[in-house]
């Protein structure tokens, strides 16, 4: 990640390999797309209906859905809506045989990653799928890191949390001691504990971590943190 200090790299769980889910009622279209993605080294699963796809357990995974708009039974837009409830960050790329503006607008408003017309160009579609997968991976990583930072901040005591807020506000230990009451030395000890508990590599790293977790302040009274 750009701007991400190496010292704070997390031992985040290694993400599984991404899967491309192809949902198209046209059997031969499914086969053609499988050829395309498999030969690009992507694990691919093909479903003939939206219902069959949604019945798959565990959709909240790294990957991408290539979704046909017009299908008998559940149409693409409805599949997207249902999927959003279960796996909000699984990107959806729509494929359509008849590009209709209102469908495209609805799809993009509902958060579609892309909207591609049939006939499509193999390389172009592949690039879009890979881009969607990369975007999702970055989002998932950021979310994961945020959760990890929040977990660490949650281990601070209420007092340490207070001191952290003053540090983030750019105050020196002396200023903090004056503001909170207590000796400069005590504040220095809190500071050390904070650096230790958060495993921050530097003051800059600590501030970045705190800002990434965002409001509300992680530890004021109960020391708990929102994740």
């Amino acid at each position: 990640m750009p701007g991400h200090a190496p010292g704070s790299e997390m031992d985040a769980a290694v993400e599984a390999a991404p899967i491309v889910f192809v949902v198209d009622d046209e059997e031969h279209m499914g086969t053609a797309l499988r050829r395309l993605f498999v030969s690009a080294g992507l694990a691919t699963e093909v479903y003939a209906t939206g219902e069959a796809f949604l019945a798959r357990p565990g959709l909240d995974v790294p990957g991408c859905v290539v979704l046909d708009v017009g299908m008998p039974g559940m149409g693409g837009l409805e599949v997207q809506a249902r999927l959003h409830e279960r796996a909000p960050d699984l990107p959806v790329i729509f494929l359509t045989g008849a590009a209709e503006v209102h469908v495209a607008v609805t799809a993009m408003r509902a958060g579609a990653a892309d909207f591609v017309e049939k006939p499509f160009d193999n390389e172009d579609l592949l690039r879009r799928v890979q881009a969607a997968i990369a975007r999702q991976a970055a989002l998932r990583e950021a979310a994961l890191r945020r959760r990890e930072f929040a977990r660490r901040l949650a281990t601070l005591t209420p007092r340490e949390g207070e001191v952290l807020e003053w540090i983030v506000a750019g105050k020196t230990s002396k200023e903090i001691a004056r503001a909170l009451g207590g000796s400069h030395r005590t504040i220095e000890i809190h500071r050390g504990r904070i650096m230790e508990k958060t495993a921050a590599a530097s003051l800059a790293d600590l501030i970045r971590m705190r800002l990434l977790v965002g409001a509300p302040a992680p530890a004021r009274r109960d020391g708990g943190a929102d994740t």
Partner: protein
Amino acid sequence: MPIAIACPAPTGAAKGGVRAAPALDAGDTMEATLRALVDATPTATLLFDAGQRVHYANPAARVLARLCAPEKGDRPLERVADWHPELLSTGALHLCSLHGSWSGEVILGIGRGQHKILLVHLSRIGPERFGMTVRDITQESVRESELHARNAELEVAYEKLQGAQEQVMQSEKLASIGQLAAGVAHEINNPIGYVNSNLSTLQRYISQLFSAIQSYEAALAEGAGPAATDAIRQKLDLDFLVADVPQLLSESREGIDRVCKIVRDLKDFARKERSEDWVKADIHRGLDSTLNIIWNELKYKAQIVRTFGDLPPVECLPSELNQVFMNVLMNAGQAIKDQGIITVTTSVAGGRVRIDIGDDGEGIPADVLPRVFDPFFTTKPVGSGTGLGLAISYGIVSKHHGTIDVSSTPGQGTLLRIELPIEQPR
């Protein structure tokens, strides 16, 4: 001022007419009454002799004199020519002497480029005695010629209207094709989509095969053993290629076949025929090609149940009938909200071909039912229907001397029944 001096004895028709009036018995009274009658009649009436000397002219005749020569004012009217030199032609007088009477229209120039059209009737009422009645029909003539002009205009308008009707029919046909266009695009873009994708993949496969050949050649040149060729085989995934290439090709061929079929169906459907192109055609073929074209519109919600009987070839305009089938089938599809069944049943009944198209959709309310064949009647939202589909279908079926009837039960469905004679009456 009456000029006439002598009134001839009543003769001919006048005499007969008078005889019917019983109250008039005295000769005096009779003559006075007749004179009063002729004086009162609004038709200009003159009595004159062979020398065209006028013996009597009623007041209407004096009015006529002013009409014929307005600039002359009141003047002595002693001869017929005093009215207008052309009022009485010698030819007319001659014919009247010969046949007893003469009628004709006379057009008189009355100065300043104006004309009067007069209806003149001459009758011989005694030796050397003639009666003349003149009626000004200028107004009527003008009206009549106006009528002629209007009539001609109407005929032109009618022809235009007929042309317009043909145009409306053609544009309704085009409109329904336009409605189909999106669906057809979808139907074509799917196979084109995967054929196109497969071709790109095939290109990659082929370059893989070429590098396999090169690797094999190199291995051969080095005299490598089976282990080396196996390695090449595995490295380039040749087993997979060998299995997938035929499959890729046959699927692509299938896609191309589908596109060809759609194009063929569309051509069948949209062919513009001259109205004389009556042919004996297979109704089932028309139903099938129409169903194929609109399949994309229907497939998401309707199941089609075809029950085709044994039909003889029917003398018809096939592409016009296809349009009827399409209108009715599209309506059936639109009547189905989520999922439903459309039945297409054909049979021969009473020497006529019967085509029943039914759906189990929402049905048509009783108050709407009588209007479904009315032009411009539509229950669809503005812009999605022309309201002409069924009206035009009705026209087409009538042109085939057939009937189209609708029956419907709200909530249960609608049945359209089309009956056509097998041969057109001569």
